[in-house]
């Protein structure tokens, strides 16, 4: 019948994880129906579900494989299959969490993709929480929880900071890079095979020097594994696929040969004698080991055409670099938009000139022509016509002034972006503070695009946000011009819903600039723009 010993007494931690998992899974699946879930499902829900399912899955699996406490009558020991979960709970937790995360991550264009750093940090934290919580409930081992917390902070910081930076990269890197989130798990797995065990206490008989060296090497590997996805996302993704294929195949072979090894690990300070492994336990482990190996192998094989094969084809010169291809598409798009909007702008100017100033000049000419005829005989009427002509010329000037301001504001030409934004702020009907740090002039096209972007955003705030005050901040750092417009209005601005913000986004895209809007209902609205400049 059921080939494995069934655990009747689940640790309470496991129950919590299972319950939370169920809640999150329901929220994630039914997110359209639950407003709160819909808001959080994108950025938080998917990784949370992934991490929890991963950790809970770990617990279930290890409980199925063997319950050493039941077998050996001594608490504090784990039995694991080294090929699959070589370093104990964390590695497996990480692996499953990352695996499910990657599988559950919405593909491009379907809903908001979670930020990669959220995934990495969630996976690490969830795995570590599982280990720490489990150890704490069973044996006194606070030093492991402390160690885990420190490592989590370091890894989380590195991965979070780096991945946030990297997430600004282009789509091709992002799509292959998300597999690289699995790298820490793969490294731990391979490191376990090599005898580098960061998370467990050293086996009895291992000298302190060796234990510390192994710990240091394991930590270094993990740091590399956290940094690598950021610096070399595609190479890391390739490594993940190859690593999964290799270890999966290895585990399947071992399982098939009924040779899956059993490693007994201590958690915290074990009490009493080590367990005696019963006859038949090894067989059970081999069956599960082979199944899990097959799953890993399947994932690896599934990843191959998404990571290794395209990169190989690219390296062999059979296919263009996907990053470059995506860049070419993007440039073609933004160029077409730029050409279209320039043409539309020219048409608008032509129409304005034709209907406005040009018409008035014709009228002036006609008035003067008539005045010329009347001047000798009826000077009074001629004078009236001349006055009319003068007024028409003033009106034409005023129209031309407005038109010029819309084409290229003179103060922008004279003084550059900073002063032009200051002038814009002065002319607003609301109080507007400006913090501008622009020591040098920028390229004229960038200045113009940014000026009109700010003007549009500010106009939106004045017209739709019901704001009482505004703040504009402009700074240039590391070759990046960053502009932030904040208002204290009603919020709810959405670039996707036909406001001028979409136009601003397109305008900035021609310069590889980006626009981000944070506008919760009730405000405040923050519009941030970033444009690379020399």
């Amino acid at each position, binding site marked *: 019948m059921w080939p494995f010993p069934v655990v009747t007494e689940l640790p309470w931690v496991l129950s919590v994880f299972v319950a939370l998992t169920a809640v999150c899974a329901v929220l994630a699946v039914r997110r359209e129906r639950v407003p709160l879930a819909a808001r959080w499902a994108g950025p938080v829900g998917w990784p949370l579900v992934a991490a929890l399912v991963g950790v809970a899955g770990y617990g279930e699996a290890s409980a199925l494989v063997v319950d050493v406490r039941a077998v050996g009558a001594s608490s504090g020991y784990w039995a694991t299959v080294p090929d699959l979960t070589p370093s104990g709970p964390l590695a497996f937790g990480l692996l499953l969490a990352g695996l499910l995360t990657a599988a559950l991550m919405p593909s491009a264009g379907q809903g908001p993709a979670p930020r990669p750093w959220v995934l990495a940090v969630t996976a690490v934290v969830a795995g570590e929480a599982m280990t720490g919580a489990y150890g704490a409930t069973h044996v006194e081992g606070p030093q492991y929880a402390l160690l885990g917390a420190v490592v989590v902070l370091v890894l989380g910081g590195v991965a979070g900071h780096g991945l946030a930076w990297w997430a600004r990269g282009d789509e091709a890197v992002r799509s292959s890079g998300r597999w690289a989130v699995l790298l820490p798990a793969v490294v731990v797995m391979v490191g376990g095979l090599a005898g580098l065990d960061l998370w467990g206490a050293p086996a009895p008989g291992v000298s302190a020097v060796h234990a510390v060296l192994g710990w240091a090497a394991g930590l270094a590997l993990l740091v590399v594994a956290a940094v690598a996805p950021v610096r070399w996302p595609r190479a890391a993704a390739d490594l993940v696929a190859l690593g999964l294929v290799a270890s999966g195949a290895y585990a399947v072979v071992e399982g098939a040969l009924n040779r899956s090894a059993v490693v007994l690990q201590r958690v915290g300070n074990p009490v009493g004698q080590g367990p005696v492994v019963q006859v038949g336990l090894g067989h059970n482990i081999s069956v599960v080991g082979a199944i899990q190996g097959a799953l890993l192998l399947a994932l690896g094989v599934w990843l191959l055409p998404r990571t290794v094969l395209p990169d190989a084809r690219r390296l062999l010169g059979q296919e263009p670099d996907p990053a470059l291809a995506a860049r070419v598409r993007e440039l073609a798009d933004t160029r077409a938009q730029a050409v279209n909007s320039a043409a539309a702008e020219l048409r608008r100017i032509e129409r304005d000139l034709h209907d406005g100033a040009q018409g008035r000049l014709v009228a002036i000419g006609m008035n003067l022509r008539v005045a010329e005829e009347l001047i000798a005989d009826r000077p009074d009427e001629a004078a009236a016509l001349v006055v009319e002509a*003068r007024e028409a*010329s*003033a009106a034409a*000037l*005023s129209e031309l*002034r407005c038109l*010029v*301001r819309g084409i290229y504001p*003179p*103060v922008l*030409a*004279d*003084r550059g972006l900073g*002063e032009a934004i*200051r*002038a814009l*702020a*002065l*002319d*607003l*009907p*609301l*109080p*507007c*503070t*400006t913090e501008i740090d622009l020591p040098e002039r920028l390229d004229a096209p960038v200045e113009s695009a940014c000026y009109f972007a700010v003007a549009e955003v500010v106009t939106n705030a004045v017209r739709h946000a019901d704001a*009482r*005050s505004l703040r504009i901040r402009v700074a240039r750092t590391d070759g990046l011009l960053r502009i932030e417009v904040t208002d204290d209005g009603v919020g709810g601005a959405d670039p996707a819903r036909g406001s001028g913000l979409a136009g601003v986004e397109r305008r900035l895209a021609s310069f590889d600039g980006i626009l981000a809007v944070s506008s919760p209902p009730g405000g405040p609205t923050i519009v941030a723009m970033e444009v690379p400049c020399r």
Partner: protein
Amino acid sequence: MQVAALRVVVAEDLFLLREGLVRLLAARGFEVVAATDSAPGLLDALLEHRPDLAVVDIRLPPTHTDDGLRAALTARERIPGLPILLLSQYVEQIYAEELLADQAGGVGYLLKDRVFSDDQFVDAIRTVAAGGTVMDPAVVTRLLGRRSRGGNGETLARLTERERQVLELMAEGRSNSAIAGRLFVSEKAVSKHSTSIFTKLDLPPSEDDNRRVLAVLAYLMAQPGG
């Protein structure tokens, strides 16, 4: 009574407009001692002739940006109080602020359109040459717009409609008699309004026209954070 004609330097890079200005000024009895088409030429002419007034286009060669304004400000540093009347196709509050920064008076800032109305233009020239201050109505409108928002709007809101009109004309640099003529009221009424405005805005009262303009403009420009 024969008064010595005011000596004027003109800086304008468009030939037709420059010639037009020279002709207009000559026709109204001013002596144009130099007419130049670039900022360096303007600075040389101002330092050489030390005129009673300079009529300056903001945008001049060589860079065709705000060279005219900068040359005029440089000249005013060398010759304190040198009267400058800026002409431009557009008005910007930040240029008005820079022009008024030294609080010395003898400055004006007008749209080029105002040249058409030669009375207004000639009045402005005489006021500025006499050390007064003249601001284009477009500048004043914008200053009032800026001042009437936010926390300080309440102060302006306390003014009556008539007081607001008087304030606007005062900010443009007009004398009591000019304001009276414009609003068809007696000079005494204007003086009463102006006292009331100064009390409401909590400004020190001043009989001197120029000090009064500067005080009003400084008040309007004192927008926090602007």
